[in-house]
């Protein structure tokens, strides 16, 4: 494994933060500043942006000056990394699909995929996954009256 250390991680966040602060401040320049007695929406971002840049620089400096004690950045690798990425992908797909196929179906698929990944066995995963989604649907939609997306599919089915 490449020696990614805390030092590198910190500097990376500092660098990203610096870019973010620069973009934030630049976009904030377009907002009306107003006057002292009628302060506009641009005033506050112009205070926050430079301060954000300052602390991001601080992070960079910390990364720079930090004694590289070799504390590794505990990044997942191999199977661990694969699992994290797949769960993230499943969640992303869940959010993409929800407006189309509705929450119930989408959540069933999400749960099935995640259980399959963590435990294995498609059939058992599907049973547990669907059960989980139905239970959630019952609890939130029926009992707590949360209006979850029914999706285009739900509309077509008249659900």
């Amino acid at each position: 494994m490449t020696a990614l250390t805390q030092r590198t991680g910190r500097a990376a966040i500092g660098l990203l933060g610096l870019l973010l602060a620069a973009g934030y401040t630049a976009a904030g320049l377009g907002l009306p500043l107003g006057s002292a007695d009628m302060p506009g929406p641009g005033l506050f971002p112009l205070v926050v942006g430079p301060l954000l840049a300052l602390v991001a620089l601080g992070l960079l400096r910390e990364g720079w000056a930090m004694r590289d004690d070799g504390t590794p950045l505990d990044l997942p690798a191999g199977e661990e990394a694969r699992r994290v990425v797949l769960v993230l992908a499943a969640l992303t797909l869940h959010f993409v699909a929800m407006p189309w196929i509705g929450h119930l179906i989408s959540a069933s698929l999400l749960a099935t995929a995640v259980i399959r990944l963590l435990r294995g066995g498609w059939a058992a995963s599907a049973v547990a996954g669907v059960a989980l989604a139905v239970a959630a649907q019952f609890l939130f939609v029926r009992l707590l009256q949360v209006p979850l997306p029914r999706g285009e599919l739900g509309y077509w089915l008249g659900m």
Partner: protein
Amino acid sequence: MGALEGLIFGLSVAVQPQNLMAALAGALAGTAIGVLPGLGPVAGVALVLPLTFAFDPTTGLIMMAGIFYGSMYGGSTTAILMNIPGESASVVTAIDGYKLTKKGRAGAVLAIVAVGSFVGATLAIVGVLVAAPVLASVALLFGPAEFFALTAGGLLVLSRISGGSFAAAGFSCLLGVALGTVGQEAVTGQNRYTFGVLELTEGIGLVPVVVGLYGIAEILNLVETSLRRPELVKVRFRELFPRRDEWARAVPPWLRGTGVGFFFGLIPGPAATLSSFASYRLEQAVSRHRAEIGHGAIEGAAGPETANNAAATSALVPLLSLGLPFTPIGALMISAMMVQGVQPGPLLVQQHPDIFWGLIASLYIGNVMLLVLNLPLVGVWVSLLRIPVWFFVPMLLIVASIGAYSVHNSMLDLWVLLGAGLVGYAFNKCRVPLAPLVVGLILGPEVEKHLREGLFLSQGDPFYFLEGPIAPAVWGVALLVAVVGALRRRGRPEPAVADG
């Protein structure tokens, strides 16, 4: 009507069967809503608002109040057990609470927090009873200058609440402040940083950010470690109960937390969250075991959870005695009264003593119920830890997503949830603390709002912000705490990030 007479009258109202039922139903639903990450008290109260139209106003309000303080009881549960705060008021509880869970003290913390919630609420009720008329005017003392001092000073004091280096904590905090400026700005209606996305005009929601930063990040952590982790956490029965020394250590934070919470509740603003953060900070400063705080000290969980329950109670004072809504929940309760033809305002106590005293008395009854309910539930909650990871992960993913979505019925909040989850995961890896981000997101918009209100009000005079006795005093305290905190940290090695 005097306080004692009022209380007795109130009890006679509160014990009517439909009111008892409402208190119980509200407390139960509130606990459930608090336990579920994402579904916070506001969502819960909003959900029952239409139901209350069918009841008599006292019953409806008792139910809404029950949901509010019930969710304060429940909100800490997932924070302590899984490092996933059920609502923003429990963010600081997660810091020490979760560390104690890892040490096998989950049951003990939950019990201490439940009793602390009861103590905080009960003492606050006594305070409300004794001093409600006097306390009502506290809210009147606070104008933009005072609020600016309180919120900007709060930002200063609370930004390093969970340790981390100066730059790391400051970065996290200011990132929160910057995120808070996204959306339609309240004074002029100008859209900022929305990039043409209509849903962004509503701003970056606190719920999806908190649930993402903590919940999704923790889920990713669970997934990552799922290969090495033993699936069953054994909790022995006797470990459910706090040891005698743990009880003893919890008492001072309970009392201090009650005081902090009671005070913040009287002031219009995000009282529950602010009070739990302030209480944690106070414990860091004055507790006898302050060196342990951040590493799994009972004080770090007992104080904040007591504070937010005390605040939930005393927040009823400005609501009922001024009739002005300062929080989303207050607005919902006012709305419930007005729909029923009850006019909120200073005369409420005289015109509708049944509502005022009935509600106060039912708070007491509701809190007894919650205590009786929550202590046995400790065992149930702890057994949640036995759910195998393969089931736990998808369950949390679904519940967290629904919670984030339900706040505004907005798909955008789901993407915010995911983004916040990635940020939380990365920050944990690099030891950048998360709690300051939440502080910044909550207080940033308040700071801006009061700054601009003050400038409008004083027609551009910056010295306005130091007028009066309160604002300079608040600044003094804030600066003192910040400086003393900084001095104490000097010469010590960088403390480990507490909420990683």
